[in-house]
């Protein structure tokens, strides 16, 4: 925390920009600048106890331009998308949507090596990009092999139970229009890459 105090005075401009950047990258209207630091979000959050910073604290840090600390935070990765914060926020700040924005930023800027969640997301969408549908078995095996080979055992019995009840399939379903979907996603990614290069924050 000491570095923070030191870095505040000389970074007045970039600070403002970080707030605007986060707000612009959030779909719809984020209302981030309207936060009154009441803590309703942090109080409501089911993961609040596990987060290193509550959503409210993150928003204060965003205002202070503490980019590193914000993007290193584990908080967005503990967000379970329950949307309690969003419906309870007295200022109608789109807290959950902002959490997603911070995840994207953290991944893009390489802050997430220590996190399992981005990898899970990555694995999940890997199957979607390949087949058009999600593939639970593939996801479970590939992800858990990489992250917690030990826990695999426990998950294994669970998977067996699921097989026994025909709730897991060995092969993924592939949609017919895979080529079209592929073209769409490639185009979307191309636009995103473009925006990254040209600073088109609103698209990120």
């Amino acid at each position: 925390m000491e570095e923070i105090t030191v870095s505040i005075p000389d970074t007045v401009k970039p600070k403002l920009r970080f707030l605007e950047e986060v707000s612009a990258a959030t779909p719809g209207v984020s209302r981030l600048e309207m936060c009154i630091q009441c803590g309703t979000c942090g109080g409501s959050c089911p993961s609040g106890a596990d987060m290193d910073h509550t959503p409210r604290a993150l928003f204060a840090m965003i205002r202070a331009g503490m980019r590193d600390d914000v993007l290193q935070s584990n908080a967005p990765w503990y967000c379970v998308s329950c949307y309690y914060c969003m419906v309870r926020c007295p200022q109608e700040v789109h807290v959950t949507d902002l959490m997603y924005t911070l995840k994207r930023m953290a991944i893009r800027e390489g802050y997430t090596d220590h996190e399992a969640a981005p990898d899970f997301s990555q694995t999940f969408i890997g199957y979607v990009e390949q087949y058009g549908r999600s593939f639970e078995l593939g996801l479970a095996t590939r992800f858990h092999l990489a992250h917690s080979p030990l826990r695999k055992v426990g998950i294994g019995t669970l998977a067996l139970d699921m097989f026994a009840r025909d709730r897991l399939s060995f092969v993924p379903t592939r949609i017919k229009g895979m080529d079209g979907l592929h073209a769409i996603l490639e185009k979307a990614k191309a636009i995103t890459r473009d925006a990254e290069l040209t600073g088109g924050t609103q698209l990120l």
Partner: protein
Amino acid sequence: MKYGYYPGCSLERNAAAYDISTRAVARTLGFELDELDDWNCCGATEYIAINKLAAYSLIGRNLALAQQQFHANGNGHLAADGRAQLIAPCSACFLNLRKADRYLQEDAKLRDTTNEALAAGGLHYDPGTVFVRHLLEMIVNDVGYDEVKRHVTKPLNGLRVASYYGCLLVRPRLGGELSDAEYPTELESLTKTLGAEVVDFPLKTHCCGGHMTQISAEVAYELIRRLLQNATEYRADVIVTICPMCQLNLDAYQTRVNQHFGTNFNLPILYFTQLMGLAFGLEPKTLGFGKEIVSAENALIKIQRSPESAAAPAPSRPRKKKEEGLPMPRMPEDEEVTA
């Protein structure tokens, strides 16, 4: 009545019981579910964490297909306001589709670029043309309790049901969801219509842990434990859900939660459509019973055993005022009762 139907990935396999029972209930109630051709995954809560535009394009493909299939030719799927109706039984799919449609309307830049991407696959979506609805909301509002009641042949007498909504149907509020973001009552009213006994379940809109079971299991186990404990405290026989993710977490991870905390919860987790099917007199087999990990056997026996009239309702609001002491505030429900 005819609706577009977006089952979503879960209902293909892991939540097949939901799909089967939904289609069975639709047959009884006489509404038609037209599956969206060649739909793709909605991206769950994952894609948006990686790439915004790709996530919106992925969802956008479904919306564009729905516009083509159900809106363009206006073949009887239209709501009164002219939007094509697309029913999603999975809360996560529902929210993803609903929210994308909303933000695409609000955010011109997002709309244009999403359509730019869709064009690469020969598609286009006009935000606002597809009205995404959740199955529960549609049954409650379009079919109605009275019509449901008319089809009840085997009331679920004596079955104590905790109604569990989870998050994504009731929150965030983008319009057209249930009565409240924290204390909705539709599912309770529906289960009551089926003859079951509704138990108070204060945590009914709390989180099931979502994808945390995969990422940080301990965090998820704790969330699941809270729910199971709360439902057990109120002596529920079953928890009824409206979302495949909730069902999976509470059902498949129940044993692990028991191991982790040394508890012995034993609560079957059923889909509301399964209960509807039972009350309509359909065979449990045809409703996907048997696919749950925590067996619903006992619950089924309880319904069978209990004589039709023995619906001695235990007090469903145990904390209500007793005769002595200060009066409790008047609640809207009380007025309903006295009226």
